[in-house]
């Protein structure tokens, strides 16, 4: 018993002495703004320079031409820039999807919020693609039943935004934003038929509350970044011709 007590005291003493090194008497915490008043370290600047110069040379290379400025605010339910992006995803990705699966993409859906910049009138550079699409999201094709496509259309009618859709889809709303007509390549959407919808992985995973992708019949990631889709599309397009059209509209009573 005495021995046990002694060892306990020894143990306690040991723990105390171990924790006894130093103790904090005062703590000061703050943040320091990194602003132009702080001179740049010249060694670091010189180290960055070759990386910076190579990068900017490539980013500033001219790959296409925009005859006008394209902005996502240019239309109520469809815009030239949104149509350009959705149609570019279709034209770049359908050959890949077809080669891998033997099937065609039915249409493309992207999101309004995913257009992060305008395309200014003039030369288009690689940098333009980075500005429109700074994120790493990649294209995925998902198989949806017609019923889920209907949910998708309902989503678009409720969202009242120019979420980009490709030209295969024709969606018309009435003045109360209710769907009055929806066709794919001129055909009505059949509830139990399967459709292949291309989107990006952010939206497929429920981004922008696009929950209709969750009830899918399959998913085919293409490992093709949306930004690279744009870069490749620009490179093969001398001058942009995309226009606002009638693919997604609201009609007056």
């Amino acid at each position, binding site marked *: 018993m005495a021995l046990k007590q002694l060892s306990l005291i020894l143990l306690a003493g040991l*723990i*105390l002495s*171990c*924790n*006894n*090194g*130093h*103790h*904090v*008497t*005062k*703590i*000061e*915490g*703050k*943040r*320091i*703004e*990194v*602003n*132009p008043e*702080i*001179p*740049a*370290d*010249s*060694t*670091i*600047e010189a*180290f*960055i320079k070759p*990386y*910076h110069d*190579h*990068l900017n040379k*490539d*980013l500033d290379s001219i790959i296409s031409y925009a005859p006008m400025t394209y902005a996502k605010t240019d239309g109520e339910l469809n815009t030239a820039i949104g149509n350009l992006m959705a149609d570019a995803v279709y034209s770049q990705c359908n050959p890949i999807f077809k080669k891998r699966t033997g099937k065609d993409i039915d249409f493309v859906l992207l999101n309004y919020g995913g257009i992060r910049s305008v395309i200014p009138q003039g030369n288009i550079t690689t*940098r333009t693609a*980075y500005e429109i699409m*700074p994120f*790493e999201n990649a294209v995925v094709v998902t198989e949806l039943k017609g019923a889920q496509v209907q949910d998708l259309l309902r989503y678009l009618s409720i969202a009242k935004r120019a979420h980009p859709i490709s030209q295969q889809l024709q969606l018309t709303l009435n003045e109360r934003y209710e769907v009055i007509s929806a066709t794919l390549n001129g055909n009505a959407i059949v509830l139990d038929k399967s459709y292949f919808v291309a989107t990006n*992985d952010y939206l497929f*995973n429920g981004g922008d509350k696009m929950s209709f992708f969750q009830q899918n019949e399959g998913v085919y*990631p293409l490992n093709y970044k949306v930004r690279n889709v744009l870069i490749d599309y620009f490179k093969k397009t001398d001058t942009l011709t995309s226009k606002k059209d009638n693919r997604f509209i609201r009609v007056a009573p």
Partner: protein
Amino acid sequence: MNRRRFIQQTTATAALAGISGFGLQAFSSSTAKKITILHTNDVHSHIDPFGPNDGRNANKGGVARRATLVEQIRKENPNTLLFDAGDIFQGTPYFNYYGGELEFKLMSMLKYDGATIGNHDFDNGIDGLYGQLPHAKFDFISANYDFSNTVLDTHVRPYKIFFVDGIKIGVFGLGIKLEGLVDKKLYKETVYLDPIETAQEMTTILKTDKSCDLVICLSHLGYHYKNAPNRVSDLILAKATKHIDLIIGGHTHTFLPKPTIEKNSENNNVMVNQVGAYGLYLGRIDFYFSPGRDVSSEGATILV
């Protein structure tokens, strides 16, 4: 110790330091010690300063300026450590072109002492992160990602103990749940462990077994989730654990004007700090130490 007098003293010291430049120690006593912890988070490949047209961030940030700042502070107090709380990668074309090489090389030149891993550090896959490790001369510290069945096995340590001027500083790292945030193809067989349980295990090792004077957590859990207040975050971590002195946070890009003070499970103070994102700010926490056991009832004076 009278708090007001302490603040006045500090102000006077700071003013003096401003006049006489660097190299002035705030404490002249030979037994008192001062450790400075500097930190960044969510720098997201922001190497160059923002341009003049970048809104509220215009002309701010930049690694070369941060280097000057860190060097000045190290001259002022050589007993300084520099950490990052993750999401080093992704956000500018530097990452897309060079895969993180330049980020790691620059952090090595700035003599970072350690970093934890953020979700975006998996953006080129776990192999992409592994491939850049030779460029990092600092340790990756993460305790709640089990990398046993991945290429990162043995390349990431759960904690690291630093001896600085006789002070023992234990640093461990915590990462965010990757499922639903990062494609499984990217993080592969990385196993996520409960951050609170892991923190309890780490603090037992660092405080009880290794008798560290200071315990710091590098966290990429996020500061606080207003719309999901029960989701594990730095504030929840601070309250649910003991023996952590400082949580250096990230992920939520929270620009805290000053550190937050929380009470831990034993009603002791925990400091939580996060400096937003993109290298716009550098966090600075100074710890002043006295030898021996704390005999006061109030604990340390905190000035934020």
